[in-house]
């Protein structure tokens, strides 16, 4: 009885709640939209800022200003013909440093370095090795074969930075036995892949230190 009496009230309450819910929802949407519009406005303002800052930067760093700074302070001049190197070969020829024992130790390894990129060159390197006097090749660790090997690989080594080369040089004492063409490219590949890894930087510096120690030991 009482329930029947309150039925309209319940209806009104239900409809009221539903309407309120709908209204709240629409209010929510409106608020979101307003926020979105605000964000868009901020984006536009930021883009305008970027544009004006770019303009300011471009104006302050205009070429005439740079020219003036160059004339007053930097005195940079255009590179001349001799400073452009066309190939690795000319780059190697460009290297006029005094060769040290340590450099020679590095050079041995460098012949292996271009092998993964250009298998043909690996073949050439092998041929050069074969052309070297036969008795000189066999005593792997002795310093005697080094000069014979130096000539050809020297050319290739210079294009590479000495830092990545060093750990490879360290490994060399174990490398000569595997000199037969078969498995070497893969070995080198894994090595260079590891070298490219940024995480091995500590490894490299440690290796460089030991290597330096080894060189003085020689």
């Amino acid at each position, binding site marked *: 009885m009482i329930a029947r009496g309150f039925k309209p009230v319940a209806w009104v309450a239900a409809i009221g709640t539903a309407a309120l819910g709908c209204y709240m929802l629409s209010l929510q949407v409106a608020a979101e939209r307003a926020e979105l519009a605000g964000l868009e406005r901020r984006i536009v303002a930021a883009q305008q800022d970027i544009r004006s800052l770019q303009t300011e930067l471009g104006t302050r760093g205009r070429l*005439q200003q740079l020219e003036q700074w160059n004339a007053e302070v930097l005195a940079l001049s255009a590179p001349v013909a001799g400073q452009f190197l066309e190939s690795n070969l000319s780059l190697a020829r460009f290297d006029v440093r005094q060769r040290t024992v340590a450099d020679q130790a590095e050079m041995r390894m460098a012949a292996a370095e271009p092998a993964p990129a250009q298998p043909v060159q690996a073949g050439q390197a092998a041929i050069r090795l074969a052309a070297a006097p036969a008795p000189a090749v066999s005593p792997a660790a002795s310093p005697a074969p080094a000069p014979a090997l130096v000539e050809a690989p020297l050319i290739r080594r210079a294009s590479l930075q000495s830092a990545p080369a060093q750990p490879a040089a360290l490994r060399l004492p174990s490398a000569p036995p595997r000199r037969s063409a078969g498995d070497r490219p893969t070995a080198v590949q894994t090595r260079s892949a590891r070298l490219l890894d940024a995480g091995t930087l500590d490894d490299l510096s440690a290796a460089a230190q030991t290597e330096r120690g080894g060189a003085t030991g020689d």
Partner: protein
Amino acid sequence: MATLAAQIERTAPCGDYRSGLTLTYHRLMLVMLLFAGVTALIVLRLGYLQVFTDRSGAAQLANPLIPPRADIVDRNGVALARTIDAWSVGVHPSRIIGDRAELAARLNALMPERSVAQFRAMLSSDSNYLYLARRALPELVAAVNALGEPGFVFNREPERLYPQTALAGHILGWTDFDGRGVAGMERVLEGRLTEPGLRGEPVALSIDTRVQAAMEAELSAAVTSLSAEGGTGIVLDVHTGEIVAMASAPTFNPNAAGRSDPSALYNRATMGVYELGSTFKPITVAAALEAGVITSPAQRWDAGSPVPIGRFRISDDHPLGRAVTVPEILVHSSNIATARIADAMGSARMQAAFRAVGFDEPAHVELNERARTLWPRDWSRATVLTSGFGHGVAVTPLHLASAYAALVNGGIWRPATLMRVEPGRAPRGRRVYSEATSLRMRQMLRMIVQHGTGRRGEAPGFRVGGKTGTAEKVATGGGYSRRVNVSTFAAAFPMDQPRYVVLVMMDAPRGNEETHFLTTAAWTAAPVVSRVISRTGPLLGIIPDSARDIDTSELVPLVAAAGH
């Protein structure tokens, strides 16, 4: 409503009470429905507005990003002209409440470009609004605002800014106070820059800012050190006709074009017509090769004695005193032998040769600032002979650059353009010289730099080839002045595969110790070309290489080692 019901009752006092009541109910219901209907209409309308009105305002918000005038950029996208929001300071004279005389004195202290009296006249004028300063710096705006006068107003207005200041000012031109282009590319591109649909997209010119800067720097340094009246430098892509750099000294700042020296606004590259002297000789020789007048490079032309025409005699600065081969004519720049070639060509063929490279028309370029050439009205024998070595026909430096492009690029003449040309979209142009003639000319131009007058134009490794030209300037009183020259060096590089023409012209250089007070092109214009090529060659993608060069071995034996 009550009255309505009462009236009904009164009009039907004796009728059925029930039916009267029903009628009243019906009427009440009708009124209620009316109210409900109106309310529903309002609710629906509100709902409609709620749902369908786009309140994000994206359409209005996107607009500020589109500038009122499109940007102009160089071929690599570096901004050359932009529109920024600048401050302007204005005044409503009628709304001023402070002491006008004192305000005028204070304004003069802030903006010394106007006198106190001028400011006082402005502040007490009858007009509704006056600009005190346009494109004002924020500091100035703050200072004027600190005066606390309500009559001053500060607005943000779109202003054209040229971030590179004087760089390429002659090409860009400038805009007036209403933002309309009045000169240069601003004027040419007016429609494109203001078109609503395209304003957001910058317009790319063919200019390379870095090359333009190098050319302007080297040119103005040379003009200053040689005390020249002016100068111009052009770098032109030989395969597309794109102008990569075009400088004219003295320069002006397009940000304040009105305040610059009027003579600086003059673009010598397209407006100045000059008799460009010996730089015409390669054109004459190429035309003679084309026409079959020169049958072989070994053919000898008499340069032993001056050629008399009427009262004048055509002579050489350094007389060779013998018959010379064709490469020798160019290497030693013999006027006599060139005049003989022109004589053999005859009037009709010489005219045709010059018309072929457009010397009878204004320069082919977008700019409105270009002059008509001085094309001789009657082609007498004297005109024909002197035109062979660049006197009597006056053209702009841009004409000559286009002609040299045709000489070296395989023989195709193309109009010069300041708009960037997409790869593969180069205009077809017209064939002026055969491939063989072009190759021959490349060899001989290279030999001029290797063995002849253009030695100072060499840039090691860049395989430069070119021709010097020192013309005597027409003096104010008429006749030629020996001391006042127009010195030009027109070059192309790399000669084994030409990519760019570089032309430098110095107007009336005076010389200095370094040039031994010589004003010839070899001492004035050629070193500028050499420096510009050394600086910009790598930027343009040409790597200097000492191991490479054009093969001139078949022509070298034809040039006798001269004492000069």
